[in-house]
């Protein structure tokens, strides 16, 4: 086996397994982070270091961390996984069916071009130029979407500033 494939493969699958099965939600998030590092490794192996770096920067450094924040701000203890077995087995059934069907398709399909690797030259400059030229509209829209998402997120979670409690809230001795 090729180590350039198996290493990311192992990391992705182990991480995803943790992310999917751990009932401690914080562990699940860390599992996700591990899995995403593996995905970045796969990107490297697929000849795209730039996206790999971006994956780590944005996903691991940004999204995973935001999730951890959300976990801490919401539930410290995860909700009990009650009514578990039926639900889990049903979900596993659906996912398994999906997996089986998908593999069937992949194995049977002919992707035409065989397995010769892409050696086409690309550079950051090319990516950048395409971003600002060919995909300019998508790029600008995405930036707008991001901006709106940030503003929207702030608006959604904003609450009225709670003023420091009044003097009356101080521990009083009156009942003593």
């Amino acid at each position, binding site marked *: 086996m090729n180590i350039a494939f198996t290493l990311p493969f192992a990391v992705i699958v182990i991480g995803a397994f943790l992310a999917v099965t751990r009932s401690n939600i914080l562990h699940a998030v860390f599992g996700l982070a591990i899995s995403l590092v593996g995905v970045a490794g796969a990107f490297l192996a697929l000849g795209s270091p730039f996206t790999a770096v971006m994956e780590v920067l944005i996903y691991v450094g940004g999204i995973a961390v935001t999730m951890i924040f959300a976990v801490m701000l919401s539930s410290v203890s995860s909700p009990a996984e009650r009514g578990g077995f039926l639900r889990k087995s049903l979900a596993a059934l659906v996912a398994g*069916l999906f997996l089986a069907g998908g593999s069937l398709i992949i194995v049977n*399909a002919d992707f035409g071009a065989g397995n010769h690797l892409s050696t086409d030259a690309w550079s950051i400059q090319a990516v950048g130029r395409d971003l600002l030229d060919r995909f300019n509209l998508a790029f600008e829209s995405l930036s707008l979407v991001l901006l709106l998402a940030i503003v929207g997120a702030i608006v959604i979670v904003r609450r009225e500033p709670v003023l420091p409690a009044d003097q009356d809230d101080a521990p009083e001795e009156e009942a003593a």
Partner: protein
Amino acid sequence: MSHSTLGLICLLAPLTAFFTALVGFRNNHRAAMATVLLSGLASALCALLLLAQHSPQPELVTRSWIHAGGVDIYFGLLLDGKTLIMGAVVAVITLCIQTYSLNYMATDPGRGRFFAFLALFEWAMLCFVYSPSLMQTFVFWELVGLASFFLIGFWYSKPSAVAAAKKAFIMTRIGDVGLFIGLILLFQSTHTLDILRLNATHFETTRIELITLLLFVGIVGKSAQFPLHTWLPDAMEGPTPVSALLHSATMVAAGVFLFARFHNLFMQAELTLTIVLCIATFTAVLSSTMAMVAKDMKRVLAYSSISQLGFMLMGLGAGSLFAGYFHLVTHAVFKALLFLCAGAYIHHYETNDIIAIGRAGGRKLRIVTAGLVIGGAALAGLPPLAGFFSKELIIGSLGHGHPRIFVIGALLASFMTAYYTFRMIFLVTRPNADSEASPDQEAPDHEADDHHAEGSLLPTHAPIVLLTLGAIGLGFLGDSIARLLGQSAHHPALAEMAPAIGVACFGVLLAWLDFGRSAAAQNGFVSRMPAVRRLFEQGWYLDALYKKLFVGLAQAIAGLLFGLENRGFDGGADGIASGTRAAGRTAAKAQTGRLQLYIGTSILLFAAAALYIGLGASR
């Protein structure tokens, strides 16, 4: 320095100053003010240099932003006669006003922010003026509106200022919708954003009527023409330098400038031109009447702005680019002057009321009073001041091949302009404590304290003197401006000018009789007709009318629909509803509210479909 460098400095200096002042010097007012002032100076110098180096051919300095769909969207400068003159006017007047604000805002706690917004305003206006493309024009058209919103609402703790800012913003936005649709239609029919190419386009169809009308809607909003003019008097809630800026070289001028910019297009649309003439003439007369009774100095000037803008549009609509444009330039100068003078009075006497200012000894501010008189005379169109030449040209251009009604309207407005201007001047310079006139508010007594004497008066007086010189001398530069615009300057014969001079003189004379004489009642002839007076004072009840009209209209429509619904639909709907409800109750059982059930089902179905297609494909 090359044109592109000059142009870039001219545009970037205010932007840089804006950010530096707003972000960098948040707590350092002095540094913020200095930065903005320096940037204003740089811009003015560059704009003047550009003007001095002008070449007969339009020149483009641009940087591309996006190529998309075969269209090149770019930003930059278009240097031709129109933009160069207007750019210089904007930059110089802004510089004057910034200098003036040094004193005017000296003790305001938010002065750093104020100066930052001044810089933003200047930047937006300059970019708008020099714009080579529709895209840039529209972007900065809106930015001008935004900056004016910030400035009008500068004293944001004052509810009236906030309301005025909102009103200005929303009113102009109404016009902008029209403008936006017009621009899109324009782009759709020409497939270019380039203003030069646009102007060279010749339209065969009547579509141009629609386009220009829509553009004119935007101009009506921004240049405060009837029926969207009501925001402008309210915009007086901002600090006076802001009013000076709004009324002279920026904001309202943007509308007229847009008209001039697309003059070629407008010339192809007969119908639009007629509508423009009607609205402009009506606005000029209407707002003049309001100015005749206003006691608030800034309001008088505001109404006069509206009416002068009407004049400009009359000139442009009558087909004379030069006349309208010339009036735009001269008006910018003397209106800025008048506002700065008004600001000096208001700052000193802490009242807006003309009568109160006069009685408190307004004439003691000699330089300011001189500025007021000269600016007022220019506004009234007295020879040989700047306003005279441009107004003559407009009335002259109306005389050629247009219905008499427009000329009469223009003469009427001109007469009233002279009347109310000199009413204001006489009330300030020849106060008569015994007259019947009663001020709405008294000026606080300033004999005892002299805190106004603090600091140098130079920043107040220098711009006033400079603009006074401009108001005197600019009228004689008509030929060179015409040359820059590529138009021939025609000099109307004395016989043509006679009626205009006549009505102006008559207006002054009447003002003298009503206000100037030592025995004058100082109430004006209008007050002998109380109903008319109230009508004028209430701005022809337009604000109230709008409220009634739109609210009432909405209610009427709602009532109509209500009746229709009650009788027509309800019966049928009830029957359908009960059936639906029964069906719904059954179907709702499937709606478990369990998100994951939904997802699972949809995934399964999707997977089945994919499997079917996939297997089919691989077979």
